[in-house]
């Protein structure tokens, strides 16, 4: 994954100037992602010692695959949060995308046609979100809350609320993409790694990425300096919807059947992953590594509840508390730095 520093490429002029800039190690420990990663590792080690079911290849395979879905959607969510917005519609878009794939393949079309249509439908929801937010300046919370309802309802209309479990001639391809593995690594995990690298790269190395951060920190400054703010915002919501769309396709393949409650309240786990990983709900800050590590931590905790025989009803309490705790830590840090 691209590094946070670009020290190696700079000349000696800036090296001299950067004399005071923090070292790599201290920068690493200033990152929330590092601490969350440590927490995840500690949990994993603890679980392997406490139970003999955690560290089995099958369970680890399941854990990584499960967190990959939340992680994939969290990639898009992190970008949205960095830009100062929120996307509550992702869970429903996952469902809509999966449903479009299912229906089109069920009707006898090939996988690629179905996947294209599913991603087009997802991108359209993202475009509508982004256009309302950027052009009509509506709060992202309201717009995407509405889309949460609209997208799931569309999935119900399309499927007549049936479960679809027959996928036509390309069924094997779909099942392999979502449920298969290469070199022992589940395909959704590979997708997460590749798209995670891509997203990090876009954020760090392109003008688009710089503009996303700029808009999240000071939208007015971005407008005044000539950043195409509305287009960047729209692209951010389309990006988020596409990540949800890809996730929907993979989940359809993994589950081998699609129902209209797929991805229900997934947005909560996704937002938790992003925020635990250091994304600031006020905008302007967030990392992809953080989102992935955050998603991993949530899944490990979820898995541990099951393995330790604690009722899964507690999951919601954990995820919710995590969001609140992560934001609380952020507030405390902000208060401390303004009081200096």
């Amino acid at each position, binding site marked *: 994954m691209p590094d946070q520093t670009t020290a190696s490429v*700079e*000349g000696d002029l800036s090296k001299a100037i950067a004399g005071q*800039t923090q070292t790599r190690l201290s920068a690493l420990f200033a990152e929330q992602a590092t601490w969350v990663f440590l927490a995840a590792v500690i949990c994993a080690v603890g679980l392997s010692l406490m139970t003999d079911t955690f560290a089995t290849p099958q369970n680890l395979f399941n854990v990584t695959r499960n967190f990959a879905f939340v992680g994939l959607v969290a990639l898009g969510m992190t970008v949205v949060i960095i830009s100062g917005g929120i996307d509550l519609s992702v869970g429903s878009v996952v469902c809509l995308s999966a449903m479009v794939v299912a229906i089109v393949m069920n009707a006898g079309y090939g996988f690629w046609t179905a996947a294209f249509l599913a991603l087009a439908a997802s991108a359209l929801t993202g475009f509508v979100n982004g256009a309302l937010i950027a052009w009509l300046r509506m709060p992202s919370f309201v717009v995407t809350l509405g889309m949460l309802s609209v997208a799931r309802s569309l999935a119900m209309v399309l499927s007549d609320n049936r479960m679809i479990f027959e996928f036509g001639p390309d069924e094997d391809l779909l099942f392999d993409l979502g449920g298969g593995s290469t070199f022992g690594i589940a395909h959704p995990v590979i997708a997460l790694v590749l798209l995670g690298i891509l997203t990090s790269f876009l954020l760090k190395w392109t003008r688009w990425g710089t503009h996303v951060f700029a808009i999240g920190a000071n939208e007015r*400054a971005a407008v005044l*300096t000539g950043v195409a703010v509305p287009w960047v915002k729209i692209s951010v919501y389309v990006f988020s919807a596409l990540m949800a769309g890809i996730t929907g396709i993979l989940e359809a393949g993994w589950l081998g059947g699609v129902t209209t409650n797929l991805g229900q309240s997934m947005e909560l786990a996704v937002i938790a992953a992003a925020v635990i990983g250091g994304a600031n709900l006020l905008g302007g800050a967030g990392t992809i590594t953080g989102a992935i590590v955050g998603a991993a931590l949530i899944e490990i905790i979820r898995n541990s509840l099951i393995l330790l025989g604690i009722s899964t009803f507690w999951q919601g309490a954990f995820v919710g508390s995590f969001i609140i705790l992560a934001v609380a830590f952020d507030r405390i840090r902000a208060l401390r730095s303004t009081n200096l």
Partner: protein
Amino acid sequence: MSVLQLDGVAKNFGAIEALKGVSLTIGKGEVIGLMGDNGAGKSTLVKIIAGNFRPSSGRIFLQDREVTFHGPLDARRHGVEIVYQDLALCDNLTAAANVFLGRELTRGFGPIRINDYAAMNRRAAELFQELKSETRPKDLVRQMSGGQRQAVAIARTRLSNADIVLMDEPTAAISVRQVAEVLNLIRHLRDQGVAVVLISHRMPDVFSVADRVTVLRRGTVVADKPVAKTSPEEVTGLITGAIEHA
């Protein structure tokens, strides 16, 4: 030939008449001190010149040609740069990224382009050196002093070869030493033929650096004369309204 000429520029915000027919001419390399009480319309005037607002009526000429700006980018293309009162900086970006915000340097081939951080940091360092500012290009703006932030905002205007630079209270929130530096920069701009409009509440700044003082009161120009032919006392009277007109 004038660099900038305003002819009867007015601006209403709903019922508020922020500017009531302002006419003004600025020559090449001239420094204008724009003064006036809070709410007199100084920022509004400067924002109209910078293309942030469209005037409700009146005309704007650059190099004797009438122009209509469609936004700040358009004005910038015509050689007008502005330093905003709140500096318009992004705290979470580095000094160099802020300097280049909206016009980042990139490298690559064809449509695939990546940010050229090395070049941006190098160029920003040069600009800060010109400004004699101890601002490090790779530091985050969040950690910077008021003077350093000012340097970042001013460095921005130096990226292009502007004919006119508008500054909204650049010396309001910085140390005495930094004020001297900003005033030096203004002289430096003037020596290169750049016209500067300096909004300031600080009489000493205006009298040390400006060629002319223009006083706005409730949206009207009440005085426009060379600094040599006026005094801080007279300008104070004009600002408060104790002196009606000059």
